[in-house]
């Protein structure tokens, strides 16, 4: 089962290594990871996507909580939430495909963030399924470069799962 876990940590050097070491040291895999400062510059938030059975996830959340620099752990499996990730795709379509690519970008509410004589760079934000669908479509049009963020997540207000 895949879980999205947010971890509030002290914004200090070495903390990322402690968290990632916890996973690697136990043979657990991190599927995606995003880290950023919060509004409080002393605190960072990490959003980790990982997979495992209930016992593994229980160990992961307990071990995370045990780390001295970890302030709070939220497993979004237990909470109604929104998830977003972003992808940048640089694409070099044939002349006759250009209009189609732009149309597809529009359908996915993508934005053209750069365009040159040969390429477009399209930014798309959304949940995992949307990103995957978009990437799949673009594959037919000559993807030159590709960059994807990890997931970030946030609980919905007042909705219990």
């Amino acid at each position: 089962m895949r879980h999205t876990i947010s971890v509030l940590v002290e914004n200090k050097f070495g903390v990322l290594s402690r968290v990632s070491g916890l996973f690697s040291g136990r043979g657990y895999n991190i599927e995606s990871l995003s880290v950023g400062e919060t509004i409080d510059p002393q605190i960072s938030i990490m959003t980790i996507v990982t997979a495992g059975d209930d016992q593994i996830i229980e160990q992961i959340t307990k071990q995370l909580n045990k780390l001295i620099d970890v302030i709070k752990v939220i497993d979004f499996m237990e909470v109604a939430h929104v998830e977003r990730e972003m992808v940048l795709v640089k694409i070099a379509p044939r002349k006759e495909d250009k209009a189609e690519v732009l149309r597809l970008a529009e359908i996915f509410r993508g934005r053209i963030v750069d365009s040159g004589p040969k390429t477009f760079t399209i930014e798309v934000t959304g949940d995992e399924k949307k990103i995957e669908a978009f990437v799949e479509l673009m594959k037919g049009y000559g993807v030159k470069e590709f960059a994807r963020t990890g997931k970030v997540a946030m609980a919905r207000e007042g909705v219990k799962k």
Partner: protein
Amino acid sequence: MKKSGAEILIECLKREGVKHIFGYPGGVVLNIFDTLHDEKDIKLILTRHEQGAVHAADGYARASGKVGVALVTSGPGATNTVTGIANASMDSIPIVVFSGQVPTMLIGNDAFQEADIVGITRPCTKYNFLVKDAADLARTVREAFYIASTGRPGPVLIDLPKDVTAGKSEFIWPQQVNIRSYNPTYEGNKWALKQAADEIARAKKPVIMAGGGVIISGASKELKELAEFVNAPVTMTLMGLGGFPGTNRLSMGMLGMHGTYYANMAVQNADLLIGIGVRFDDRVTGKVGSFAPHAKIIHIDIDPTSIRKNVRVDVPVVGDVKLALREILKLLKEDAKKQRSETGKAWLEQIGRWKKERPLTYKYDKNIIKPEFVVEKIYELTKGEAIICTEVGQNQMWAAQFYKYDKPRKWLSSGGLGTMGYGFPAAIGAQIACPNDLVIDIAGDGSIQMNIQELATAVINKLPIKVAILNNGYLGMVRQWQELFFKERYSHTHLESGNPDFVKVAEAYGAVGLRATKPEEVEPVIKEALKVKNRPVFMDFVVDWKEKVYPMVPAGASIDEMIFDEEKEEKKEKKLKAVK
């Protein structure tokens, strides 16, 4: 007035109540050693290897309950501490290790004697720090001692770049430690404790399984009270020996791979297993799927990650063992003064039968020294009051089986990591912490050679440590496995031809060397050793090399599938048949 980083460090150590540091000097810690030169309140014990320093700090902590301290230089000095740190980490021992580091501006430059010790020790410390500014030093030391000694204790490392100890800063001692992300749970959940008490009151065949957590939290009194109140038999893990009196009628000794027959049988037939300050290590559970198959499991531990890590748990209690036991006792007493002593009677009788059926034993031989006999004699002649340290292997298991520990902090053994070479330096730490106690290291001829250089430390400090070398000329435990499971192919376990004359080694260092080669010499040698009060003694007991540790649960088997000495031949035949 500003102080140097080194002065601040020493001042901090004084405020933490540190009296002894185990250490080894080097280039980047010269400022600290220079400050220590005039220091009256703190004594540095110079070991002969950094691994020895950390094990000594560990032994000091185990014997005294205080935080042990080690101080080493950068690079190789620091990397030499890793085994000691990992050892303390596995056994939850509070130590603080100070390592020197190259000056901050050189960090990452592959400078001379540079090692990323914070990176290297990250997985084997409870926490570690790199101090970048002398102004942070006092707070860091305070936090390090706090983290090391609270919650589930463990080793903490502080890396000190040379410019930090040389630099100057105001000394401000933080009155409080406040780490917002570190708040160990001491009070167990009320509801869970109630559940636990109910299960205990209801159980017909309860077994208490006590671990190192009982000793760490100082809960021996509460444990004894609980066991006697509910009339429940108690087994101990290797780390828990001494947490409950080994001579008590309810004690079943150790369980697990080399545990007693009756302890393992009791666990496998119990209807309730009360795990107290344990982590259900694989050496204890054997095959997890068939561990305690009929029992509900109550698990009390301060570390939530221990719970449900290895075995299923019906009633988890996260909290300090001592507080939890007090609460459970209170609930049992006020609520149901159930006739536990009555319901427990049949169960205790059953355990009594198992005890009679297969007691912990060995065959005495009048021609050759049996290692168990040596341990038994040591027990007898020290009246069970010595602090026993062990190395790792057969010596450790025999010391666990044939010496009975009635009090906590009298048994110092590398449980989790299984570190050969632990016992002797740990004995040095223990003897420094408890100068009036009798400290004995039960060793093997393999293990003792892993830190034999510490003889110099023991001699120079006039420590009357007794080392009993159960000398069988082999890496005995590995040899035992080779005999039983690898068709007697003794690949690289024979040491005898390369072994030194241990008596001469002792004498060369200025210690006393004694030897016994016949059973009748064992007692006089021990008596002679016990007379020596001002230096260490090596007792070289030339023992039967064929002797094995029994009972034994083969790896991957359930703990009631034990093999015994007399069954050896039979089993072998069975195995051969199975192979055919």
